[in-house]
């Protein structure tokens, strides 16, 4: 049990810190989606040139092949420096890319991996459907084999940044007669494929990054199936195993940063009665409680990484961290509204980041598995309670 890093690791940390200090974008990410795409790709190119692209990817596909501790150090420093988040780069770097590394054939690896790291392409996901949310395996979008192609018809929903993506990791039903988990395939799809229609969905925070995607007899080559036909459920479950403890480092530090910003706000904001917000014990105790929880989020993340490092297997910490962090983040945002008081409903002006955070926080307890699904998973898989 130790928190020590070796001298080499500390030197590595300094190298990361210095490079980020010098190279991270000075301007903030544009709100406009097309400009956002350009910004994300440019930053990925910079990372690639600097030798920081794909920190957990094997070197043979252009990655850095860092060990867990180097990844951890990189992510800690990255988040502390408040360098840009993954945004549109997220899917390619963390889901589609690693899936192809784990389950793709050599041809697929050579074709699809390098462009991700080089900042040439954006990937998106096509998993959920209007009728298949928490119950993902009941998805209905079907793919009928026709020679070398599949003909895909159906629809997907919650596809982030679909309008601005080049490629999509798509789950389709290739065997309608098999049990629901058995007839699914994981497929690579071009976003400019004919027969597709993309409809943006406005979210409650005002974003338009979510989409519904319709497929009307879209042709996808059979060779774009990754991990074998009808094996898509297993392939998509493999994604879970990429969510090693390190995956939570950025959101953990983001939560800490938000918490410290809120503490700062409470030290500056006056309540109706003229006192500083921090002088109200009710606010103060809630802040303190959440600060303690945020601190423990760091400890939980490190314990999770240690567990992964020991066993090589993702443990229960994935679902736990996801649930704990997303609910905590929401509570922090609700507390912030108590502090900004009557400013709570103003999206313009100085304090507007807090009501914006509040609106955005609802995505966290829904996306990537609702909190209710997370509690089921923890109860059943981790504690062994019956279904």
């Amino acid at each position, binding site marked *: 049990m130790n928190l020590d890093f070796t001298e080499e690791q500390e030197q590595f940390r300094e190298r990361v810190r210095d490079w980020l200090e010098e190279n991270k974008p000075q301007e903030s990410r544009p709100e406009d989606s097309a400009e956002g795409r350009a910004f994300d790709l440019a930053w990925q190119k910079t990372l690639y040139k600097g030798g920081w692209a794909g920190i957990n990817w094997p070197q043979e596909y252009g990655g850095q092949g860092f060990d867990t501790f180097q990844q951890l150090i990189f992510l800690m420093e990255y988040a502390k420096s408040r360098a840009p988040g993954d945004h549109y780069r997220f899917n390619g770097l963390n889901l589609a890319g690693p899936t192809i590394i784990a389950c793709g054939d050599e041809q697929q690896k050579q074709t699809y991996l390098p462009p991700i790291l080089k900042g040439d392409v954006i990937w998106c996901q096509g998993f959920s459907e209007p009728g298949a949310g928490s*119950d993902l395996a009941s998805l209905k979008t079907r793919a009928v084999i026709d020679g070398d192609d599949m003909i895909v018809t159906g629809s997907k929903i919650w596809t982030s940044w679909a309008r601005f993506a080049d490629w999509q990791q798509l789950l389709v039903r290739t065997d309608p007669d098999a049990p629901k988990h058995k007839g699914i395939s994981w497929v690579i799809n071009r976003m400019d494929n004919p027969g597709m229609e993309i409809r943006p*969905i406005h979210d409650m925070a005002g974003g338009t990054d979510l989409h519904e995607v319709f497929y009307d007899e879209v042709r996808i080559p059979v060779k774009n199936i990754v991990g074998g036909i009808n094996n898509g459920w297993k392939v998509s479950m493999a994604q879970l195993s990429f969510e090693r403890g390190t995956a939570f480092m950025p959101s953990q530090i983001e939560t800490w940063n938000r918490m410290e910003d809120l503490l700062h706000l409470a030290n500056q904001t006056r309540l*109706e009665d003229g006192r500083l917000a921090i002088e109200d014990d009710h606010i103060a105790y809630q802040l303190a409680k959440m600060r303690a929880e945020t601190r423990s989020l760091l400890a939980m993340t490190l314990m999770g990484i240690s567990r992964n490092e020991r066993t090589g297997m993702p443990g229960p910490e994935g679902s736990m961290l996801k649930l704990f962090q997303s609910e905590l983040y929401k509570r922090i945002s609700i507390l912030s509204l*108590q502090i900004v008081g009557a400013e709570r*409903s103003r*999206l313009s002006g100085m304090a507007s980041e807090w009501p914006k955070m509040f*609106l955005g926080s609802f995505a966290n*307890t829904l996306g990537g598995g609702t909190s209710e699904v997370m509690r089921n998973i923890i109860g059943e898989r981790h504690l062994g309670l019956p279904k």
Partner: protein
Amino acid sequence: MDLLPTEEQQQILDTASNYLGNEFPVQALLTTAQRPRLNHDQLKQLAGMGWIGIGLPDTLGGVGYGLSEEALLFAELGRYLMPPSLVGSVLAARTAAVRGHDDLAHAILDGTLRVAIATQQSSAPATISPTVTGNFLVFEAEGADYIMLTDDGGAALVALSDLQQVSQERCMDPTLDLTCWRGDNTTTTCFVTADQDAIFLRGTVLISAMLLGIAEATLQRSVDYAQAREQFGKPIGSFQSIKHYCAEMSIRCECVRAMLYYASITLQQQPSAGPLDTSSLKALAIDAAQENANTAVQIHGGMGYTQEMDIHLFVKRAQVLESLFGSERFHLRQVLSAAAPP
């Protein structure tokens, strides 16, 4: 003792509910960026039905019912996301009438004059007295003639043209216009102290009623959705997590509705219990509306997070309404300092 609407009260409620359902379906807010929610003609129409003066004594030019009937009406208005400025109109008519400005009162009662409503920036509270000084965050100043300014000391009706606009703001609630205005020792058109008439407390009851409308609307939508939406081959309402969320939501509704009825009576009849009951009501109503609306998003899943369903509008309106007529913090303080009722 009967803490339920009388037949006559039920009729007021049903009429309002039917009318609003036909004329102002919440659904309409999804397809058109409808703003203002209530144009001049529509305001006149509501006024023509006596909704502005429903709780004002007929001796003062009103319909002659009381606060209970007003509260029943405003719960329906809240359920249909009608603008909170209607509370402004009701209070403005009362303020003008109490002060003997009969013509002004009449023009507000018949919807000719439009009244906006405001909150203050917590960090820099304004002074509300026979003159007003300071900044106000104003909801729906667009097209308004007057603005209703209140705090627990009194209520002032001010001509908007006597104030200066400081800035155009952006409201979290996309159906509401938000601007910042400033008074600088500005003379009010009329001013009523809290002792003369409990304008602030009456406004608190009406805003609480609107919050109840939100709590009930989001419960109803959640129950409907939980019955219809299937996952894992079953309606999601059969899962205990969803069922228990709904049960807690319904208790919050029952709790606030009972308190609304109770406070609407005691405020008129037992002045000593008024502040305890009114502040209890607002604190509970804020909590119910916000918790229910936020929970409704979770029950509706991804769809609840979008602007394709109307749930988000309730989430946002519940935040706006907290900021009107005293925050939860303010009202909890009042609850604590109130004497125990007899």
